């Protein structure tokens, strides 16, 4: 496992074994929710007995869960639609600034990612209470947008850093107006990073618990808020169903990222 040193077969086997253990630790625990979702029992027990689709039916029929799912989807889509252009423009503007201004702007923009989210949540709660935004979709989307802007900003900054600005200049000097230059020269080359940041923004909003817990209620109550309350107070079997659905969505995302993302996610 080190350059220049040959591993003995025994050492090699130990290395692989330890690595496999760690991979199991990382990837396996979440998978347990899949068999749990087919349980027919009221209680949390393994192996699930008897097997049934009872909780899937319950999920589909439950007003609480379906409303929450709708609110989560709306919040996620709106957050993505707002934060991707806002974050991308900020990254573009920051790239054009001088070094000192750029540092100032980027440290301000990534602030929401650095500050503990509980502080943002209670601060928003306090401000929203005065603006009558508690429980509103607008307030929730605004809060989520603040959390996702740093993500979009970082991804897009990396993309603009590799983008040759002379191409935009060349397009302009050849007679394109800025709109044409953006639509035909700049954006098509940034499709990957834009898609990646949109995906990240959507998932961040979809999974966000703490802000939703404080400022969403009634119509805007999201899936994570319902899940968290249930997990903290009394675990409801529907959680396994919701978890399975979320896990399925996450696997789809990882599959897409691995297929297309090597150029986008430099890990």
């Amino acid at each position, binding site marked *: 496992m080190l350059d220049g040193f040959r591993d003995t077969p025994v050492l090699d086997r130990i290395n692989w074994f330890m690595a496999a253990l760690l991979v199991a630790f990382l990837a396996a625990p979440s998978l347990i929710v899949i068999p749990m979702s087919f349980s027919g029992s009221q209680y949390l027990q393994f192996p699930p007995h008897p097997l049934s689709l009872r909780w899937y039916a319950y999920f589909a029929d439950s007003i609480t869960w379906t409303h929450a799912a709708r609110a989560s989807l709306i919040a996620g889509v709106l957050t993505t639609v707002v934060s991707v252009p806002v974050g991308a423009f900020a990254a573009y503007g920051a790239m054009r600034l001088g070094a000192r201004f750029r540092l100032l702007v980027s440290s301000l923009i990534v602030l929401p990612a650095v500050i503990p989210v509980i502080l943002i949540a209670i601060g928003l709660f306090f401000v929203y209470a005065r603006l009558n935004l508690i429980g509103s979709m607008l307030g929730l989307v605004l809060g989520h947008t603040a959390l996702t802007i740093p993500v979009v900003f970082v991804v897009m900054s990396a993309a603009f850093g590799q983008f040759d600005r002379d191409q935009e200049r060349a397009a302009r000097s050849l007679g394109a107006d800025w709109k044409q230059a953006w639509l035909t020269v700049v954006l098509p080359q940034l499709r990957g990073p834009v898609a990646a940041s949109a995906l990240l923004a959507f998932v961040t909003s979809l999974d966000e618990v703490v802000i939703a817990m404080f400022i969403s209620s009634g119509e805007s109550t999201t899936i994570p808020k319902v899940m*968290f309350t249930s997990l903290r107070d009394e675990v409801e079997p529907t959680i396994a169903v919701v978890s399975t659905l979320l896990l399925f969505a996450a696997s789809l995302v990882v599959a897409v990222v691995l297929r297309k993302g090597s150029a986008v996610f430099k890990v």
Partner: protein
Amino acid sequence: MAIAAEAAGRDLYNRAGLARDARLDLFLSMAFTLPGLAVVAICVVIPCGWLFYLSAFGPDGNPTWDNYRRVFTGGGYLRVFLTTFQVSLATVAACVITGVPFATFINKLRQEQARLFLAAILLPFWTSLLVRAYAWLVLLGRNGVVNTFLLSLGVTSDPLPLGYNQFATILGMTHIMLPVFLLPVLGAMREIDRTYMQAAAGFGAGRAFAYRTVFLPLALPGITAGAILVFVMSLGFYVTPAILGGGNVQVISMRIARSLTNFSNWGAASALGVLLLVATGLLFAVSYGLRHMILSRQRR
């Protein structure tokens, strides 16, 4: 004479034009960043500034230290801070102990194999915190998978208390933080020139000696960056301790939320919040200094 004067005039004209262009460029660039800055100001800077105000001024509008004094003297706040640091440090330790060898292993793999491992790291990265907390509850609970397994093997006669305590919290947090730790460490290891270790081997260094004196120091900036990131993020955790701690683990974030939802005590909540923020800021400053120190020492 006339020609020279005209040239000078044109030069002046050009320069004024260029300066105007530069101003316009700066103005435009600033304008692009404005919407983003506005959202951050509205959602983060103003609310957090307000919390600072609430923590330092009484209801009558006069400055007071009462909120901070209460944090340091009573109500078990000190224990909350201690628990938070304990849990965070344990999480960092678990990440470093398991993550550094793991990253060393992945670093040497061929592209396709490394890709598979990355997928395994990324999958939990994309999975909701709540799903993972629930999964750990299923695994560690009294009638959970681990206990059922141990009981059927006859290893124990009573279910072990695995869930709803500090152990479960640290396990759950390590599960969440390990991918966050691995990414910068892998990044740093990838930068290391492979010939260095080959040279160490060629000069007769032992495996452990070469690893300790050549490889690890070169990976150190990435490891410290990852460790500090994990520590700072752990300090602010809320969801995982609240679920996996089952009320037996009180961390700062939970106490802040409780001060508000149960007691509507804005003074205490904001003072705790400000202290958490200050701790976070200090740690980032320290990490920046540490990184600088390591890098400058290596250059010498």
